[in-house]
């Protein structure tokens, strides 16, 4: 296996932060405001973080049993050759599907907010071509691109949130838990699925230079994401109130339009594009790499690079075909994606973790050597 590439724990952490937060900060506020009202920030801060930590814990624990293999490689070892390959195939399709949805979100936002006359295909091709180049470079390249992108992302988001500070109306948050805890839980359904995207770590664990730090990096990433995704929701409710927030398609964009410092610093929405394009490119590259790696590990290739373009074209076609319009996309994100994603983010890894623990402790497989021998044979 050509897994000589290594990334540091902190690089992986920031990569995961960009991966999850890049789309979440634009799409989540409207969804949580609609379901949880002015308590939406609690949904994003508490429920989703708990879920994200659980996903991170399960994935890193599972990966810890096979430190130099990816999920798709060790699944056949755990559950038998054909069921394992089936699981691998399911994850390949899952990654491609999620990536198509991400690319669609990217194009949809640019078309609906800034460039309504341009065909969405143009944006999708652009981001996919950029990501393809990054993916051919490998995970080290993506991690370094992200080291450049992340600070901009952080600064722009911080500027958006804190330049509106004059308009904050803390009364908008009261009363806390007006309708009890249920709407907060209902509101955390979608943010949880978003946070659960840290599941891509399953494919990247072998690339960490210190596997022992994996759990710490993922947990730190989930906590940083919690801040990143809660602040825009909180700022949106503080400025607009939850009722108005729920009516915007992209509350964070409206927030940027609202920024006005001394009649001088205005119309900051253009800088949202900086974050959006840069962040999405990294996010798409991460999921793209995950799907290409799954495909190549599924059939046991030593080099994944030849698969980059074919997988990209399949992703591109689906980014167009999946939804007819923006509304359909948002409805799908809010109502169906979470439950579908839970299965892949928590369900399957949890089942495999239980199997790994049982088979280890039951002593049917005598340690690591047997795992490797069995794998060589397949």
């Amino acid at each position, binding site marked *: 296996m050509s897994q000589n590439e290594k990334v540091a724990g902190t690089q992986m952490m920031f990569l995961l932060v960009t991966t999850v937060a890049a789309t979440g900060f634009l799409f989540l506020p409207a969804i949580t405001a609609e379901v949880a009202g002015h308590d939406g920030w609690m949904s994003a801060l508490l429920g989703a973080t708990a879920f994200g930590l659980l996903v991170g814990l399960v994935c890193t624990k599972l990966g810890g049993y096979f430190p130099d293999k990816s999920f798709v490689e060790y699944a056949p070892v755990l559950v038998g050759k054909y069921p394992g390959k089936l699981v691998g195939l399911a994850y390949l399709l899952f990654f491609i599907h999620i990536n198509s949805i991400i690319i669609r979100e990217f194009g949809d936002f640019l078309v609906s907010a800034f460039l309504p006359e341009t065909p969405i295909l143009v944006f999708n091709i652009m981001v996919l071509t950029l990501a393809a180049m990054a993916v051919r470079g490998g995970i080290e390249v993506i991690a370094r691109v992200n080291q450049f992108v992340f600070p901009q992302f952080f600064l722009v988001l911080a500027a958006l949130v804190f330049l509106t500070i004059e308009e904050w109306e803390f009364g908008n948050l009261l009363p806390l838990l007006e309708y009890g805890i249920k709407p907060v839980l209902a509101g955390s359904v979608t943010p949880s699925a978003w946070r659960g995207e840290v599941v891509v770590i399953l494919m990247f664990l072998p690339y960490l230079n210190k596997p022992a730090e994996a759990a710490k990096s993922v947990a730190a990433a989930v906590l940083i994401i919690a801040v990143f995704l809660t602040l825009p929701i909180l700022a949106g409710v503080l400025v607009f109130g939850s009722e108005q927030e729920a009516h915007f398609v992209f509350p964070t964009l409206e927030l940027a339009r609202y920024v006005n410092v001394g009649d001088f610093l205005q119309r900051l929405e253009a800088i949202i594009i900086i974050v959006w394009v840069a962040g999405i490119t990294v996010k798409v590259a991460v999921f793209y790499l995950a799907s290409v790696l799954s495909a190549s590990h599924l059939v046991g290739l030593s080099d994944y690079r030849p*698969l980059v373009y*074919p997988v990209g074209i399949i992703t591109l*076609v689906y980014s167009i075909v999946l939804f007819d319009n923006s509304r359909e996309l948002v409805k799908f994100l809010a109502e169906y994606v979470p*439950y*579908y994603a839970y299965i892949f983010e928590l369900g399957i890894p949890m089942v495999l973790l239980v199997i790994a623990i049982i088979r280890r402790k039951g002593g049917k497989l005598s340690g690591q050597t047997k795992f490797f021998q069995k794998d060589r044979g397949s």
Partner: protein
Amino acid sequence: MIVLLGLVFLAIIAFEVPGMLKKQQWRELAAFSVLMLIAMALSFAQLLGLPVPNPTPVIEAIFEPVSEAVKKLLS
């Protein structure tokens, strides 16, 4: 448009295949060919307006009951 798409595919094949032949990576070549065929089938079908298998309605149908149940439980 169809010609353009065909050219793109030809370019990708011309770009990838010689390297694999030189290194005798037959497994890679096989995987590349299968994925490339799927990609070509899907994109030509989309371009010509033929039906492309779409997972969205399937996923919606499967998770509709779950979504409704959770909504009812938490409202």
